[in-house]
């Protein structure tokens, strides 16, 4: 069952007289519960595609459906509501709110976005902090946590609203190998339990190797995709595994 379906999606940024085609007619689909990586060099359009899927931006052309909703049809407030109820975000720089503790950061979307009752809120927050191994650090503020710990809190925050989709933009870029693996594994196990769809933009081979499907973007075009049984070693040449993109 498709959660995301993009048909000939394009995005043009205009700055004065200059136009930049960030996405040039991308067609793709992502199944519900998938663990997907979008890879490509810097400036290839990974983040643009993620922003469109995350309803943070609207496509300039084509059609993009997320959970059955046409992204282009959403107004500003509707987009916020949609994001709050369907999508979780994980950022490269963690983006925790510095004045709140780890617990409060995870709790934030349940109060400010979903208005969940206090008892249920406590249960959901505690469950997720436990799942990411941060129960014992929950009263610390972000400046008292390491990079890996901050990202675990960010993962818990992204998942606490029980979204159908989690979007992660370079989630391991600022982390060392061990810490990065310590982030990917809980995400994968959570995915297996909850059937949440994970979409990463990355050029981190550690994530690429954990993905079940990989989309490769270059110069705003989808250059190929491939499915893999998760857990392959990244010593194998990634380029060998690409398939041609589906016909538009």
């Amino acid at each position, binding site marked *: 069952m498709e959660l995301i379906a993009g048909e000939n999606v394009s995005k043009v940024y205009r700055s004065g007289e200059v136009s930049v085609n960030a996405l040039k007619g991308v067609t793709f689909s992502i199944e519900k519960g998938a663990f997907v990586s979008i890879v490509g060099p810097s400036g290839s359009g990974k983040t643009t595609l993620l922003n469109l899927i995350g309803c943070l931006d609207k496509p300039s052309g084509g059609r993009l459906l997320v959970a059955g909703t046409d992204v282009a049809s959403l107004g500003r407030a509707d987009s*916020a509501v949609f994001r709050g109820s369907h999508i979780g975000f994980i950022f490269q720089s963690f983006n925790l*709110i*510095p*004045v709140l503790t780890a617990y409060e950061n995870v709790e934030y979307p349940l*109060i*400010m*976005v979903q208005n969940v009752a206090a008892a249920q809120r406590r249960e959901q927050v505690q469950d997720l902090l436990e799942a990411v191994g941060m129960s014992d650090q929950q009263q610390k503020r972000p400046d008292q946590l390491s990079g890996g710990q901050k990202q675990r809190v960010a993962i818990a925050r992204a998942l606490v*609203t029980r979204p159908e989709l989690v979007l992660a933009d370079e989630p391991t870029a600022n982390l060392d190998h061990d810490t990065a693996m310590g982030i990917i594994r809980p995400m994968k196990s959570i995915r297996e339990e909850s059937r949440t769809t994970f979409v990463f933009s990355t050029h981190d081979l550690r994530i690429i190797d954990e993905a079940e499907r990989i989309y490769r973007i270059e110069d705003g075009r989808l250059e190929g995709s491939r499915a893999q049984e998760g857990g392959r070693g990244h010593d194998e040449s990634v380029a060998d595994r690409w398939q041609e993109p589906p016909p538009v």
Partner: protein
Amino acid sequence: MMNLWRIAGRNLLRYKRRTLLTLSLIVFGVLFVAVFEAVTGSFKGMMIGQITDSFLGHLQIHRKGYLAAIETLPLTMNLKPQAVRKVEAMLKERPEIEAWSPRIKFGGMFSNFLETTHIRINGVDPEWESRTVPLFLSRIMEGEKTLKKGEILVPELLAKGMKVKVGDAVVVIATNRDGSVNGKQLVVGGILESATGPGGRDGYLHMDDAIEILRMEEREISEIAVRLKDFGLLHKVHEHLSAQLGEESNPQGQPVFDVDTWEELSPFYNIASMIDIMTLFIKLMLIAIVLISIMNVMIMAVYERVREIGTMSAIGTLPRKILAMFVLEGFSMGVAGAAVGSVLSAAAIYVIDLARISFDFSRQTGLILRPDIDLASLLTISGIVVAVSILASLQPALKASRMDPIEALGHV
């Protein structure tokens, strides 16, 4: 909502020194305005009290046109007994009125048998007069604090110039309304302290003596001074009396009476109005202080937290909640500043009151400053501060709530 408060509060504590500096500006502004209002209010109240309680009364009733000609104290424009009875009947009916005092005002010559000079005189019933202007008898600097028949209370400057003392015999000569001159020998019963404003340097004698000097066949009254139980009802009573007495007209269909408040009778009203304007300007300064300081802090706060705003927006926080969060920060600063400022103001006003600072005004010396501020005034000042705080944080808050999440997340 509680969570918005919590986040707003913590954000304010993020840069404690900056928040404290802004708060101290607001506190200083509130303190300055409240103390200024208390001190000037005390000065104004005291001066109004001095003027109305010494000689003017709260209201005065004259025959129409009398005030325009008051410099000549025309006896032809006095109120006839029938008109006076009408006024007195109306005054008796009004529960807001404490007392009234009919006066016969006239100009005459004052002689100590060696020299003669001009004098303005009020013929009054001492009991009615002291009920209407309670400081009347306390103005007697020398002599008994009373006014008997056959006595005159001489204003101090005149007494000094004419070298008369209490107990001296003097003569008052006046022209009556028919143009004939009459005089009466009187004894100086007291020397009267000058008071600020017109009529503050008039002499006083008993009404019966005035009637005798002016050879009046019936009591004709120049003015009726009125005292209210509650000075705060001045304009309401003035309106009622004006409406009631305005219905009275002469055979030519013209109104008979004029009702005037002290404001229309004393030039001090202009000073009092100026004090009010100064207070208004001080309040405008407070508004400017609060507006600039809170706006500055909130603009900084939004600028520093662009990525944070982007994150909040991305994870689904509605724009109105982002707006509310920033407005609450400004509002909290305003409330805290107003509360601390109000408490400090009350303390400062109490200390100034204890210090019993004295000052002189015109010829009145040793007036004690008694600053006082009521709860309503403090609440008004606090209300202004809080309202301006909200206003000042609105623009930065709107900017935050309208931020594009992608641009905000990409902000460095």
